[in-house]
Structure formats: C-alpha cells, structure tokens
C-alpha cells in the first residue's frame, strides 16, 4: 500500500508520512556506528569502519596530513569535526558542501563558522532535497563536534529529513539504540576529557560487530582547545595512534593480526 507513495520523495503518504526519508533512515541504521560525547574541555568522536580488509591500501591515512579524510570522520573546518553514517558517496558530497560553506563563512566574516550555523547550512540543503526537485534525500546522518567562542564545545546530530538537535552524548548507525542507552546510564554532566574517551571506547567495544577494538575497524577523533593559543584543535587519530590509545586504555588486541572476515 505504501508502495504507491514511495517513488516520489516530495509527496506525502495518506497517513502524512514521507516514506523516502524513513527509508533513508533505515539505510543509516545498517551503517557503521558513530558515537560522540561532550565533555567540559572537549569532544570525543569514534566510528566503526565497515570497509575493511587486508587488500585495502591505507597508506594515505597512515602517513598523510591531518587525517582530514577517512571513511567515517572528516575535518570540516579547523573548529569542526564530523562523523558520518550512511551511504558513503552521499556523505562525501555533504562533507564537501560543508567544507565550502565553512570557507564561505570565513571569507565573508573572517571568523570560524559557528558550529550550529554549519549544521544549519547542511540541514537547509538536506531539507531542500525533501521538498523540491524530485531527487532522493541524502542517506546520511552526521554528528558534528565543534567549538566556537559563543557556546564553547557543542555536539549536533542531523538526519536525512534536515532536522538537527544538540546533544551531550549520542550515537547514530548500527546498534545506536544500545549505545544510546549505555550512554544515558553512564554519562555525567561534569565528565572530563579522559572520562569521555574512556566512555566512548567502552561503549564502542560493547556495540561494535567485531570482538576486539583495533585501528582497522575504529576511527577516532578529538576536539579540544589548545591551552596556550586558546584556539580549537581538531585531532583525527592515525591508526598507530588509535592502537596506542587502546593499549593505554587496556582495550587493545593482545595477539597478532586477526584476519577480517568479509
């Protein structure tokens, strides 16, 4: 029955639903999860990679720049890092748009784009795809972790409908329900950065598909404030740094390489 109202994104069903958007969210619920936690002095983002394998050439992210482009976590501007869940190609397109929006803001106002403004820009774009053009919506949910002088550290989540909200801790993608309840139990308002890192890694280890955490399946990033310059510092961890962090937290693999099942 719903079939009749599926093919056009820009029309309502008789029950007042927009099916294409719901289907987009369904696609996201099968994607690798992304988790974000806000603390007093920074934000932590972690994501589960789905595209893995021995034949994958990761030399780019192993040695390259600031890890600005991974599979799940991207730097949008020097003060905003985003984690994406959903259709990768759609996500890349949105990340590109967000980066341009951030630079346009910098060009006009000579300041880092405020985090909420960036989230709004993307959401305005996403909403357009649900109302005009007859094109399908973006099958991507994003978590934006950012800093601006107005509201300090902020974490936002946006979905294919073009709606967004601010969070203290949240999760999108596969097993996000489990992760969300774990976060609800464990999160404290005065959590420190170390506490947030610890919480994120613990929740990831419980909700991820694989048995142990490792840099092949995990992407990790933090956003803090440099103590001297007082400027936001986005740090997307390299695989070696992720492994080192996991070892420090006592969550790393003990044995040698475990082969990934495809």
């Amino acid at each position: 029955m719903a079939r009749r109202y599926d093919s056009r994104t820009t029309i309502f069903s008789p029950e007042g639903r927009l099916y294409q958007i719901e289907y987009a969210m369904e696609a996201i619920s099968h994607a690798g999860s992304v988790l974000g936690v806000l603390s007093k002095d920074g934000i932590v983002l972690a994501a589960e990679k789905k595209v893995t394998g021995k034949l994958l050439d990761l030399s780019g992210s192993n040695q390259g720049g600031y890890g600005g482009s991974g599979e799940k976590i991207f730097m949008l501007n020097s003060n905003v890092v985003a984690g994406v869940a959903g259709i990768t190609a759609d996500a890349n397109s949105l990340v590109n748009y967000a980066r341009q929006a951030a630079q346009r803001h910098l060009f006009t106002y000579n300041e880092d784009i405020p985090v909420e403004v960036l989230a709004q820009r993307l959401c305005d774009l996403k909403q357009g795809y649900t109302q005009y053009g007859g094109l399908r919506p973006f099958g991507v949910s994003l978590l934006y972790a950012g800093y601006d002088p107005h509201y300090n550290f902020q974490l936002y989540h946006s979905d294919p409908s073009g709606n967004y909200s601010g969070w203290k801790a949240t999760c999108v993608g596969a097993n996000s329900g489990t992760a969300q309840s774990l976060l609800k139990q464990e999160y404290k308002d005065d959590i420190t950065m170390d506490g947030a890192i610890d919480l994120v890694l613990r929740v990831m280890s419980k909700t991820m598909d694989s048995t142990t955490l490792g840099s092949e399946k995990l992407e990790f990033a933090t956003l803090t404030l440099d103590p001297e310059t007082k400027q936001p510092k986005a740090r997307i961890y390299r695989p070696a740094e992720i492994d080192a962090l996991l070892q420090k937290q006592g969550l790393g693999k003990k044995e040698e390489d475990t082969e990934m099942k495809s």
Partner: protein
Amino acid sequence: MEVSFAMTGKGYVLLAADTTAVHSIIKVKTDVDKIKELSPHLLMAYSGEPGAVVSRDTVQFAEYVERNIRLYQIRHTYPLRPPSAASWIRRSLAESLRSRNPYSVNLLLGGYDTSTYTPHLYWMDYLGTLVEVPFAAHGYGSYFALSLLDRYHDPEATVEEGLAVLRRCLDEVSKRLVVSPGKYKVKIVDKDGIREVEL
C-alpha cells in the same frame, strides 16, 4: 561637510558625528542621526565623500548594513562580533566597488565584543579599506582631529577623559573649518550597551 570622529577608551568606544543634512548652500536639517545602532553592542557612524552630491548612498548603505546585521542576529540567536561584522561590511563595500555604481560612503564602526570583553574600532572607506585603529575620523574635520588625537588620545582613558579629548577635536573643527557643523551627536558603546551622551 560631513564629519565624524571616534576613539577607544577603557572598555568603551566613543563615536561622534555631525547632524547636518546639506543641499548646495542650504542646511536642510540640523538634527540628523548619522550613527546607526547595528546591534546591542555595535555602532556605525556613516558619512559621504567630501563634496559628494549623492548623499542618498550613505543612508541606503547604512540601512542595508543595519538590517543585514540584525537578520544575522535573529537567525543565529547571537549577534555578530565586531571583527566579524567589520569583515562582512568591508566585503559588501568591496563588492559594491566592483559593480556598475558603487556606494560612496565612509564608515566608522565601534563595538564591544562581549565574548572577549574588549572594545574595537574600525575605519572603513568606500573602497573597502578596513583597519582597526585606536582612534579615527572621516571628512575635512579629520585633518584637525587626527593630530589632536595623536597627541591626547589614551586607550585607557575613562569616559570623562575621552569626552574631554573629543571636545578638543570639536572645538578645533568649529574654530578652523569654513563650513563647520553646528551640532554633533555623540554615542558610546560599552559592556552595558549603547547610550547617547550629552556634550
């Protein structure tokens, strides 16, 4: 000729502009407010080019800026900080310059940044020049005011001390400029917002 002055002090910015509207040799109006209040902590004094006939430009542009700054504030729940507002205004002037007929307006932008607790003053002209300065002036009056401000300006001055320096500038302009304005409007912006000052 239109004249405006501004100076920073301890936690404030003081702006003064003449209040005359002129058509050839006639003073059409003597109580014009040429200092727009762009947001709770942002003031902008506007003036035309020396000898410019097109005084419409100044008001048009000033109102365009005022409404856009206000729109930003309404859309994003917080106002633009002075440095960012200055960049936006400068960008608008730079684009105007490269259009078929550019706006002929000079500006002094004074604001108090409520996130860093610092006063800021910017000098802008119709070419899209933007500089942050401790004190500034536009118009023929600037020839007198700037040397006085060079000598007497104190960035840590109190409001009273700042007003005393301003009075020096205004007196000198009255004394030496052939067509000197009679009255001035003086406004101040600080952590508590904007208020008008009686000289």
